[in-house]
């Protein structure tokens, strides 16, 4: 019996630090966030219970919350679809034994290890309207070459202010795709490498084209991992914060706000804790259901082999 007791003590002492920290700094604040969202509070005076008023205000706030949410959806659909398409394409190519595949794999992934702040600033510099702005310089060259061939379309005044508040949400898409493609490519590629080679040999004997092989063998068999990728992208675009905050010099406008920047601004510059917390709670609900729905869909269709 003594050893039983000793084992219990052992189990408890090993679990205690994690349980303590997780409860105090994750579980408790999560519940408190819900409480804040039902109150009106400036962070100092006594909080006042207002029920669902914050949420109602939020949905009436067409200049801020709804616009910001649209921006998140824009990043999710446009950025997400482009990322998925490109990363699947690259993974499929590298999977079929291209020479130098490992070089491409290692190089394409690398933007993922760089700080999001550094990436945002790097793109501010790439987009710069001055003489060193890489992207404007390239566009200027392209325009000149087109002009020499007699094409004067599209008429854009260069240099174009890509990181201006009005355009920054669009300019973030290339940055997002540039960063994320390598990650999803590695993810999908790893799943593809688990597919037995014999499947492809059989398909080749049947005369299936490369595209048909992808459509009928590769894609169905990586569907589960593909779904995980979709979940990551959905969550990532709902939580998007760093790049907007940095590119907008910490002062986003209603042209550039996303949910997380609205949350930050409401709480830490306008001291409207209730409103900010309501945004946080909605963010959590969205992340939760997006994850649940996508995983549910994938479970049903997962293929075994």
């Amino acid at each position, binding site marked *: 019996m003594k050893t039983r007791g*000793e*084992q*219990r003590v052992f189990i408890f002492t*090993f*679990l205690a*630090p*994690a*349980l303590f*920290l*997780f409860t*105090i*700094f*994750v*579980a*408790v*604040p*999560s519940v*408190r*966030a819900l409480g*804040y969202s039902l109150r009106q509070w400036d962070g100092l005076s006594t909080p006042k219970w207002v029920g669902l008023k914050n949420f109602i205000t939020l949905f009436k706030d067409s200049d801020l919350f709804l616009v910001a949410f649209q921006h998140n959806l824009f990043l999710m659909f446009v950025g997400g679809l482009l990322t998925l398409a490109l990363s699947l394409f690259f993974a499929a*190519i590298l999977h079929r034994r*291209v020479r130098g595949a490992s070089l*491409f794999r*290692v*190089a*394409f*992934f690398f933007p*993922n*290890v*760089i*700080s*999001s*702040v*550094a990436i945002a600033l*790097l793109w*501010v*510099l790439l987009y710069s309207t001055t*003489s*060193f702005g*890489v992207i404007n*310089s390239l566009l200027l060259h392209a325009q000149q070459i087109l002009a020499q061939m007699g094409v004067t379309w599209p008429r854009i005044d260069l240099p174009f202010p890509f990181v201006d508040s009005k355009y920054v949400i669009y300019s973030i898409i290339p940055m997002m795709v540039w960063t994320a493609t390598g990650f999803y490519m*590695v*993810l999908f590629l*790893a*799943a593809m490498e688990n597919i037995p080679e014999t499947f492809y040999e059989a398909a080749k004997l049947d005369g299936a084209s490369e595209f048909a092989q992808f459509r009928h063998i590769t894609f169905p068999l990586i569907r589960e*991992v593909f779904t995980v990728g979709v979940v990551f992208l959905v*969550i990532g675009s709902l*939580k998007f*914060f760093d790049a907007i*905050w*940095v590119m907008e*010099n*910490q002062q986003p406008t209603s042209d550039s706000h996303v949910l*997380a920047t609205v*949350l930050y601004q409401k709480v830490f510059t306008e001291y409207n*804790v209730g409103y900010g*917390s309501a945004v*946080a709670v909605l*963010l*959590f609900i969205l992340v939760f259901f997006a994850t649940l729905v996508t995983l549910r869909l994938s479970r049903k269709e997962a293929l075994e082999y």
Partner: protein
Amino acid sequence: MLHRLGRAALYAILAVWLIAVVFPLLWVFMNSIRSSQEIFENPFGIPWLIVGSPHADNAGIPAPWAAAKQNFVAAWVKSNFSSFFYNSVIVTGVSLAGILAISAMAAYVIAKFPFRGNKAVFLYFISGMMIPAQLVLVPLFFQFTEMSRFLTRLLSPLGLEVQLHDSLSGLIILYIALSLPFTILVLTGFFKSLPGALREAGIIDGCTEYGVFRHIMLPLSKPGLVTAAIFNFLGLWNEYLFALVFVNASAKKTLPLGLASVSIQAQYKTDFGLMFAGLVIVMVPTLLVYILLQRQLTRGITLGALKG
């Protein structure tokens, strides 16, 4: 013929993406050794430091070597990147040690001891994966104020004053707590794959439970610990949102925070050499870790996704 053309096209697309990904990086490194004047005059060519400055006979323009040195001195000394770097090393290092120790202990017990409530404890931790950092951010901000006040009162006989805001320890505690769900998930999977007979053998040989964990299980779980360490290192070294909310004092800023605030001034003063040098200082450590450990890193992604 068509097949060969198609193959050439595929290589061309891969090459274009390779250039798109690698060129900006090289560009940052090259511009970090140019003076601001050179950045405007010669933004895409080979740096004057290597090919020689066209203004070599003009004494009013600093020599390329001096200009390069000046960027890094301006960043490291004058703009306090040395302090940001030190803070980032401390915060990341201590958090990492804490995360791995605490998660390994919890994960080992969850994986190897079928005590009552085992599943519930595991689910409790894993549910944290569903919680976006933004949800806990605001309550934690106020909780830190309350806790600082409470702990100061508690420790007042010792004359200690506790301040969790604007302190590296506060940030470290948060980083540890928020990283637990992911790390416990990864390590529990890993400990489950180790044979349970090892523990019994250790016990029979007279090891205590602590001894088994410390001398048998922990060394065997090294690959899992390495994977978890790499992911947490990258996440913590680059973390921005929590540092932004919990640190205001310039002396306590971590690298991403410091880079963001220095860059605002640098753009205002059009000191782009400084900005590029700052980018290099932030990027080099993670790039080095990636180059050295990229195999473990990509294997970790597979592990997480296939199991997740």
